[in-house]
């Protein structure tokens, strides 16, 4: 009976090659692999014809899918190759790591004493073979394999050597970092230490079980770091003690497609690999000394409009070979190939390598899993929908242009909106020019992690439709303030969720009734008006929306005049902004009843002496704009508001409210021009001097071009078209005003 410990570097093609050699030499009758036992049931899928790495085994807690872990595998992962070997040779294969059921349930305490295990130790532990390669002065740990084990006779000699080095490493490392020299078995060791210990105890336990079952040749494939812990099995009792009464939680697992650029992530198997594309190449073409790789490189450059000839490739292959020779390597590694590429193809400029890095060194490969792999219903529904709409769920960026008048496109849009609502941001909507058009443009890109969000929402329903509706209803139910629920309306409409929308509306009504905050009500009103006017909603929905919109509207006008009193300048400016929005919404709605009520309210605000001057100025302007105020009254209002008896700051605010953003009005509207002009002329010198600073403040907001135009008009005096009255002008006196006007406008 023999146990063969094959210590590997996760995802390392060198490890893979040696593992495969060793396996065919050992001819094991059981293969034990460092992996979560919960995934075992999924292993048989690995040999399915449609299974295309990179893929990941995903383990998650169904009640809380954010607790999840990925075990990525790609073509050159040693674990993957060991699994395939076992399945193809009908040898039982088992995952022997700590069950995720415990891993998720135990609270691993990160105690404060983390000087215990330094970052350095962590690094070495995660990737000990990289560390060995580093001491041997190799940049790439995979090169190190080749170099170090070129001459071994027996495949498993490699792993004996690895085991020895690991034993030495494990002995040396703790001392190196135990600065306090205390007893490392003390109770305050880090959570990660304890975790490692329990994991290794589990692995030993599985080895013992295999032995007891009578397997003769047991092959264990695990991260090199663990080998020493599995070499000599301690008394079973010790391990049992360690594994007693561990808490548990429910765990499920499934396969999901993975991508090369995510192979670099640290998940499941600790450190990722930075150049999966290069390793894949290395794995598939072990004899390539650079010719093939550099041809691919040239190809990518050409696709990106960089001129590369075959001669370039030849020269780069030569230089890479020469560099390898100079550095005593048996063949060029990625570094040499990159350097040759830069020197020969890029004029020494490494910037161009970015595209090679993205497309080749990392690579754009993404995996695929067979149809029928166990999935949660929500996941299955999404795939069915995607299939029906012929959109591929792939990690590639794609633009989708939709014309919402087409039923099919409309359905796609609804699906994407529902997913957004569920925080599954597969698609992001791009701004399309022109409001109210029927066009939508989406950028689609699937990320493997979105699966987690999907699993997280799985409890809400078995279909996207159902899950989105329930999720939204629940969200609405939890809203405690009007401003929380307002945004939900806009997400609910395009997602076409009538029942959920009903729930949102009811809740909105409820919250509006208890809200005394006018500005919050106004915030709620505007989007509702938008939806009512333009929203693509069913008639029944529109009725209910209109009903609530109207209710909210009357709540607003009931409280608004009072809301415009007793507030400071800043609040007044904010309030004005909101009133302006409501004003626009009312005009857009074209509902006579609402318009009349609104006008009355504006008048009330305008006439009330207690209204904040800024708002009063604005309401004057709004009424004038709607032709509800005669020129005379406007003039009077001006005179009154700006009369020298008032507080200067109040006058300034009034004027600002009136002219806010309205330079164009002043330039183009003869009536307003004349009102301002007449009013200015009516001032006696002393008063004029008093109001100059106020005016400056208002005009300061205008752009230089606007100021120049206004000054131009001022030079011409009265508009001459609008007003029938004529005023006797004394040109000489008038001219005297001009310099001051110029000063006022900031022209001089």
């Amino acid at each position, binding site marked *: 009976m023999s146990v063969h410990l094959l210590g590997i570097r996760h995802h390392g093609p060198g490890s893979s090659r040696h593992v495969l050699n060793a396996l065919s030499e050992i001819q094991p009758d059981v293969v034990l692999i460092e992996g979560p036992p919960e995934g075992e049931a999924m292993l048989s899928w690995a040999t399915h014809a449609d299974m295309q790495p990179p893929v990941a085994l995903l383990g998650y807690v169904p009640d809380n899918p954010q607790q999840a872990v990925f075990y990525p595998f790609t073509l050159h992962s040693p674990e993957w190759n060991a699994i395939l070997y076992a399945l193809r040779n009908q040898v039982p294969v088992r995952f022997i790591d700590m069950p995720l059921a415990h891993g998720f349930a135990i609270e691993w305490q990160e105690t404060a004493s983390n000087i215990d295990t330094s970052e350095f130790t962590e690094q070495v532990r995660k990737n000990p073979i990289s560390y060995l390669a580093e001491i041997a002065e190799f940049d790439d740990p995979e090169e190190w394999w080749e170099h170090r084990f070129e001459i071994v006779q027996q495949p498993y000699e490699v792993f004996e050597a690895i085991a020895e080095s690991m034993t030495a490493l494990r002995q040396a490392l703790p001392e190196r970092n135990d600065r306090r020299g205390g007893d490392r078995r003390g109770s305050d060791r880090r959570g990660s230490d304890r975790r490692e210990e329990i994991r290794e105890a589990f692995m030993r336990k599985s080895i013992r079980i295999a032995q007891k079952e009578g397997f003769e040749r047991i092959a264990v494939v695990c991260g090199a770091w663990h080998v020493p812990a599995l070499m000599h099995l301690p008394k079973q009792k010790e391990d049992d003690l360690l594994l007693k009464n561990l808490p548990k939680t429910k765990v499920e697992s499934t396969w999901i497609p993975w991508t090369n650029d995510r192979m670099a992530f640290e998940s499941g198997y600790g450190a990722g690999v930075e150049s999966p594309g290069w390793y894949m190449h290395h794995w598939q073409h072990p004899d390539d000394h650079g010719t093939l790789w550099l041809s691919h490189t040239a190809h990518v450059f050409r696709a990106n409009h960089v001129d590369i000839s075959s001669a370039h490739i030849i020269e780069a292959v030569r*230089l890479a070979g*020469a560099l390898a020779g100079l550095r005593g390597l048996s063949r060029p590694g990625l570094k040499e190939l990159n*350097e040759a590429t830069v020197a020969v193809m890029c004029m020494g400029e490494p910037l161009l390598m970015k595209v090679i890095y993205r497309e080749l060194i990392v690579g754009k490969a993404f995996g695929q899993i067979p149809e029928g792999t166990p999935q949660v219903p929500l996941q299955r529904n999404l795939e069915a929908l995607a299939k029906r709409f012929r959109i591929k769920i792939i990690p590639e960026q794609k633009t989708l242009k939709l014309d919402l008048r087409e039923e099919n496109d409309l359905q796609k849009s609804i699906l994407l909106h529902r997913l957004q609502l569920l925080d599954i941001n597969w698609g992001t909507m791009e701004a399309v020019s022109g409001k109210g058009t029927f066009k939508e443009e989406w950028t689609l890109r699937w990320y493997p992690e979105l699966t987690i969000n999907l699993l997280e929402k799985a409890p809400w329903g078995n279909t996207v439709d159902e899950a989105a509706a329930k999720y939204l209803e629940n969200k609405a139910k939890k809203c405690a303030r009007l401003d929380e629920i307002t945004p939900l309306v806009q997400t609910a409409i395009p997602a076409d969720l009538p029942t959920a929308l009903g729930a949102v509306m009811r809740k909105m009504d409820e919250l509006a009734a208890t809200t005394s905050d006018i500005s919050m009500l106004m915030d709620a009103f505007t989007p509702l008006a938008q939806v009512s006017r333009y929203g693509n909603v069913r008639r029944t929905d529109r009725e209910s929306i209109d009903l609530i919109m109207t209710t909210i509207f009357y709540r607003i006008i009931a409280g608004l005049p009072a809301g415009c009193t007793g507030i400071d300048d800043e609040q007044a400016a904010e309030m004005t902004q909101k009133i302006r929005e409501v004003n626009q919404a009312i005009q857009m709605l074209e509902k006579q009843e609402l318009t009349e009520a609104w006008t009355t309210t504006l008048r009330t605000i305008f006439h009330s002496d207690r209204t904040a001057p800024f708002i009063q100025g604005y309401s004057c302007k709004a009424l004038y704009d709607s032709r509800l105020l005669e020129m005379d009254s406007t003039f009077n209002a001006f005179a009154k508001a700006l009369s020298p008896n008032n507080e200067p700051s109040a006058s300034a605010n009034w004027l600002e409210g009136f002219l806010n953003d309205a330079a164009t009005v002043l330039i183009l509207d003869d009536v307003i021009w004349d009102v301002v002009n007449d009013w200015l002329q009516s001032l006696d010198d002393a008063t004029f001097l008093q109001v100059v600073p106020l005016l400056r403040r208002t005009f300061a907001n205008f752009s230089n071009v606007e100021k120049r135009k206004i000054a131009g008009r001022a030079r011409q005096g009265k508009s001459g078209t609008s007003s029938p009255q004529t005023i006797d002008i004394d040109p000489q006196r008038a001219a005297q005003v001009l310099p001051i006007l110029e000063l006022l406008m900031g022209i001089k």
Partner: protein
Amino acid sequence: MAQNILRQAAEAQFAQEIEEIKKQDKHTRPENWLLSPHAVVTYLMGGKLGNGFDVSPKYIGNRRLMEIAVATLTTDRALLLYGLPGTAKSWVSEHISAAISGDSGLVIQGTAGTGEDSVRYGWNYAQLLSAGPVPEAIVETPVMRGMKEGKIVRVEELTRIGSDVQDSLITILSEKMLPIPELNTKVMAVRGFNMIATANNRDKGVNDLSSALKRRFNTVILPVPETIEEEVEIVQQRVASFSKSIDLPVEKPILEEINRIVTVFRELRNGVSTDGKTKLKSPSGTLSTAEAISVMNSGLSLAYHFGDASLKADDLASGLIGAIIKDPVQDKIVFQEYMETVLKQRDGWKDIYRACREII
């Protein structure tokens, strides 16, 4: 070679090093190479030999760049050293030639006036008139000699040479052959022949290389020193060898001054003070390491010949200002700002500040 020569060629100055390296060299040598590629890199980067002999570093920086440069010359592609002024392109080119061919003297100095006859071959017209086109009437160029003797030929400032003359290099580099139609013969390059050209980033566009010529070169860009430590080391080394060559005694505080000069250069180059707190404008010049070296060297000579032989801020100021202020108006403003916001405020730098103040 005579001892009183101002600046010896690299192969003469480092003859002993080359000799020692050669003795220890166990790697195979390409034909007509004095040393193996491996040994050439050792010569460039320095290090201890098997017998304990210390080789001084010539290039201070990334070893990989030197490996790429040397490896290039083993594949019969020519080498183009490219980069900002003063990044040791010429220096590296000279030392590589010295270590490979034992001769760094086959040089063409590229200028706008460089004609084809200084690249290919010229004629001795007296001979030509009296004897007609005979081999004796040919005036050999460094290129021709390099081809015949299997040596490295250097072309300095390649991009300053006119495009048509540049193009005459294409045949030489790809065919390894130089036809002489007048004699109905040709010179065939002997193994070991190759070319190192240098060109300057800032001159880009002057006579940009044609793509046909580009394809004959592998390009290595020499960067400005990454860290202040590296840069100080470079300056220190060159200053030390300069002092030796003009018999100047090297004083202790020199290292401190080097540190200050390099700091000033780096701060102005990077547009920010070392502590990262003060944003600075950069002057128009490149402020290369090479200029830092010459500021130090001229300071040392001043101190030696006109001062009391100990280096003072006054000795450095004029060189410093000369290196920084290339544009009398703009650069002056830049430097004045720097003086007020950085030099003046820094503890222990008042002497430099005052010395500069006096000149500006």
